């Protein structure tokens, strides 16, 4: 079996008496979509925060591409190839869609201490950004400031910025949040193609989308992973049905 791209091992984080992350271990293998689901308050955001580097775990290690990244900053992790999208769209509001993507490209190239050349006259950077926007279907909105984009368009721009980083793994925090059914369908198709480029750790509320996409599922409840396995296994797991999916019978 290949080595995992990303692995969490015995991660724990408490806020006072609240165990937000309780001995969580999981892996993300090359070429897969691993979905993390859980009810509100299960600790998904805290876990994402620890993976991205915004929150320091109390115990446990995070390994990315064979390297212990537990002590690295958000920016250092991103430079290693951890590309994330935010649950609540987090873009540069006054920058156009194109310029948001260009910032990602600039970051990937690592050339942010350049003072002389005007970035908006960098034709190659602009064209590359345009190509990425076309991939997510935002080519026609390239010049619009991201604050003026619709909610669904901002979700897509989040993905486009992550694409610009050409990451070794995507960390997508509820990419479908607040999208209409049509948008979700298109995004599901898009993500299915995306996993060939890099594996995806998908945190998502939309169950239909998760079941359609995920190769593996982990269920987080009260900071603890109560089950992990294929879509079929999780669907039939009695503990999961009780805790999360809601036993309708």
């Amino acid at each position: 079996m290949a080595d995992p791209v990303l692995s969490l091992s015995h991660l724990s984080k408490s806020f006072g008496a609240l165990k937000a992350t309780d001995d969580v271990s999981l892996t993300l293998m090359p070429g897969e979509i691993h979905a993390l689901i859980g009810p509100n308050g299960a600790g998904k955001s805290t876990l994402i925060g620890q993976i991205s580097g915004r929150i320091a775990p109390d115990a446990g290690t995070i390994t990315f591409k064979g390297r212990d990244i537990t002590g690295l900053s958000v920016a250092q992790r991103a430079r290693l190839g951890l590309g994330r999208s935010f649950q609540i769209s987090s873009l540069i509001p006054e920058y156009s869609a194109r310029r948001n993507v260009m910032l990602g490209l600039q970051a990937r190239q690592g050339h942010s201490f350049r003072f002389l050349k005007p970035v908006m006259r960098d034709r190659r950077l602009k064209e590359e950004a345009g190509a990425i926007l076309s991939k997510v279907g935002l080519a026609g909105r390239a010049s619009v400031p991201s604050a003026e984009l619709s909610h669904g368009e901002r979700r897509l721009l989040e993905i486009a910025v992550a694409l610009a980083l050409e990451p070794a793994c995507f960390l997508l925090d509820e990419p479908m949040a607040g999208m209409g059914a049509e948008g979700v369908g298109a995004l599901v198709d898009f993500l299915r193609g995306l996993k060939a480029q890099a594996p995806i750790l998908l945190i998502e509320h939309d169950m239909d989308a998760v079941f359609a996409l995920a190769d593996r599922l982990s269920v987080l409840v009260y900071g603890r992973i109560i089950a992990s396995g294929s879509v079929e296994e999780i669907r039939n797991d009695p503990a999961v049905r009780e805790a999360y999916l809601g036993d309708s019978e």
Partner: protein
Amino acid sequence: MPDNRREYALNAVLALGLLLVPLWAYWAGSPFTITVFTRIAIFALAAVGLNIALGLGGMVSFGHAVYFGVGGYVAGIAAQHAFNGETFLGIAGANQMLIIWPIAMIAAGLLAAVIGAFSLRTSGIFFIMITLAFAQMVYYFAISWPTYGGEDGLPIYVRNTFPGLNTMRPWNLFILCWCLLMLAIGAFALIRASRFGAALMAIRQNPDRVAAVGISPFGIKLAAFVISAMITGLAGALMADLSRFASPAAMAWTMSGELIVIIILGGTGRLFGPVAGAAVLVGFEVIFGGMTEHWRLWLGLVLLLTVLFARGGIVTLIAGRERLG
């Protein structure tokens, strides 16, 4: 990108107006007018510096007067040593502006690197307070240092010199200040359009997003803070030579406030905002300062109106909002 014709026109009016009025005053024989416009140019230069930190990077430094003051002290100390026939930093006759300016900029930059390294770990109100606290520390250090004048400040008996110019003549000093202001505005434009500027302006809007794409906000902000302080330090050296006095008051927190006022009046982050803001500030000082000691009351009123009804200042009022592209 100022692809806005009205902004180009306004910038041209401001740049040329700042040049042509003193030129007229030169022919008309009004050295006072030239000195007033030199003050505008120097305050504008100081504010161009602050505009990099505040306008582009969103760092509300409430201690930029300290760099302005340090620049002034470099000019004053150099002049005093030269006047006494002593060396300054091992340089004999260091009353050359071409020597003083780099020293003033480096001194301000080093100080900003230290202050920034601490204060940039915070943000919001804490950043404002820490920059203020550092500036006040340096201010009290300056007024308690008798070698260089202490509370009385440091008079400059003979202005520092510039090759080929007699800096004691108002017009000559003015043209130096005007050229430096234009150079600084050019540098500001370059920085704003560059990759560095793209990262800096993005950090102002959303630092978490910038970190998530892999650019450390801290390094970018610190570099911008240092560049910002260097330009303000240069302005301080010029101001000391203009008033022939290196004053501890140039480091006082009221001065930091005035620099922020200039930027808010002119237009935060706008290329020629500092020029417009400095013209209003110095204009009020000259016009109302002659009538009443309390001229700042009227300035306060204008500031209030700006904040309430013309966010984005004079430049935005005339040329419209800026689109970052």
